[in-house]
């Protein structure tokens, strides 16, 4: 296994670099700067950092006003609190007017672990993905995180970037260049395609490796831009491999699986399986225990692949 790197720390360090390059960048946090790692920016640019206290609705509104006045705000808190605490503020103050606000949340999914249900963000992609005009990115490692944050800063419009709490093994090398809206083929294969995001990309690669021993040859796509989705890559994978398995650390409804299924239903219907959290809330536990309990491991992906292939 390659070196494990924190996506959050990478985000915080990238913000500092961007802050040096662009004086219009401002950062807002809701009393979680030590966890989201916006603390690095706060330390270097105290005049451009606004700790809004534990008040996410107000934070989002302030960011919208800053963006409407030519600033480039990055807004951070835990994924469960934004969009969770401030959905209508994101909808009316940012999405409808298409303001240039970058929402970068951390501690997404159930890999937050022991904090339990109140801190497990398993609906955020459905919520944010429902908002017209939002670009949604779920990086798979620290290298992709740094790239995605830079791309978000360079592109006008509302962005949501979803980061996890645990450190993740690198799936990319330093020369990787994130291409907004494009899926990346992580591994070639012809029997089925696993389409994954975030922490599930590494699990998908592990599953593909294990299935190879059974003689099953899996393609793996990292589709880190969830919106706008790379329809062409999904259609091509379905046409060439005949079975699709999605893998995400999110509820089954409204996230990656739903989006991919919609693309396939319209253009290229093939057997599908969904590796995701079923219609339930998770509980306290450590990250690996939770991922196992709620069906988010390489083994679950392998089972999904076998099941989809059986229906080809």
């Amino acid at each position, binding site marked *: 296994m390659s070196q494990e790197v924190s996506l959050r720390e990478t985000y915080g360090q990238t913000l500092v670099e961007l802050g040096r390059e662009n004086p219009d960048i401002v950062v807002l946090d809701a009393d979680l700067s030590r966890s989201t790692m916006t603390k690095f920016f706060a330390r270097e640019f105290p*005049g451009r950092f606004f700790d809004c206290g534990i008040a996410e609705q*107000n934070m989002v*509104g*302030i960011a919208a006003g*800053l*963006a*409407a006045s*030519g600033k480039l705000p990055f807004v951070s808190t835990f994924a469960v609190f934004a969009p969770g605490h401030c959905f*209508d503020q994101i909808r*009316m103050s940012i999405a409808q007017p298409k303001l240039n606000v970058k929402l970068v949340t951390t501690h997404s999914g159930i890999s937050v672990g022991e904090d339990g249900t109140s801190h497990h963000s398993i609906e955020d992609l459905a919520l944010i993905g429902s908002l017209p005009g939002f670009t949604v990115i779920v990086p798979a490692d620290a290298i992709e995180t740094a790239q995605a944050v830079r791309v978000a800063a360079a592109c006008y419009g509302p962005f949501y970037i979803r980061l996890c709490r645990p450190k993740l093994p690198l799936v990319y090398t330093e020369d990787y260049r994130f291409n907004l809206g494009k899926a990346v083929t992580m591994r070639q294969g012809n029997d089925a395609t696993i389409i994954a995001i975030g922490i599930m990309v590494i699990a998908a690669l592990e599953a593909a490796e294990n299935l190879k021993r059974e003689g099953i040859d899996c393609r793996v796509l990292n589709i880190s831009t969830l919106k706008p989705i790379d329809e062409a890559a999904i259609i091509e994978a379905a046409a060439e491999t005949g079975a699709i398995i999605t893998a995400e650390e999110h509820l089954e409804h409204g996230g990656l699986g739903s989006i991919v299924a919609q693309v396939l239903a319209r253009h290229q219907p093939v057997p599908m399986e969904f590796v995701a959290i079923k219609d339930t809330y998770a509980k306290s536990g450590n990250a690996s225990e939770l991922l196992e309990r709620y069906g988010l491991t390489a083994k679950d992906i392998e089972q999904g692949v076998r099941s989809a292939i059986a229906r080809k």
Partner: protein
Amino acid sequence: MSLPEEGNLPSISDSVTTSANSVDAEVFSSSASEAEMEAIAKRLRRYIITMTGKAGSGHPGGSLSAVEILTTLYLRVLRHKPSDPQWADRDRFILSKGHAAPLLYATLAECGYFPVGELLTLRQMDSRLQGHTDRTVTPGVEMSAGALGQGLSFALGVALAGRLNSQHYRVYVLLGDGECDEGQVWEGAMAAAHFKVDNLVAIVDNNGQQIDGWNRDVMNLDPFPMKWQAFGWHVAEVDGHDLAQLIQTFDQAKLVKGQPTVIIAHTIKGKGVSFMENNPDFHGKAPNAEEVKIALKELE
């Protein structure tokens, strides 16, 4: 019923000269007399009645209550350029109570942001005058509002940007009193005082009513001025229909340093139309043809 036609309605820009002191002739007047302002306020009320009547829906009550507030702001307080709505140094007016869109549209049209006749398109398909404000389509509209509680936070962001950029514009945000039921208003109030923004003035259109009735019965806000004071704001109270008091209060607010100012403007919902005054029925209901006729007669 008689509806105004584009072309036969005088606009403010015809009747008010630009300030001789202004560095830029296009920067809007701050020299309107109180007599002129009174005439304009009455005309804005006629437009509100006419446009909501034509639309068949809309919010006349909370538009009529804030007529003098907007008249004062747009005629005497704001530095703005109707010919250049995006002028970087303009003072900003943010309508947080977005349902008072008819009043804002009437005021902007009178100032020359768009033709007065366009007011008759309110709420129609493809109109620039949406039921609630939309900053992406209407010249002069700073914020997409209508979901109550969000304007103060937005205004605070605009005020902070002005400070960061060393721009000298001032930011004015109009809230409804009923809107202050929303928790976000108080998050914004706490933060504005914390960040010590003195280029921000909130005005509360304190007409005492919300959709379901009197504020005190639906959700009591008292002691209202003391709440703002406790949150760290400079508080002023005025008769929100008294132009002289409003002018003086806005002038005084410019002198307040190190903290934001709130002007609690005591107003009457539906002000100027006898059967709409203090009548919550006209919060979100347009006058019918007969009511339009009576109202316009009262506003002659």
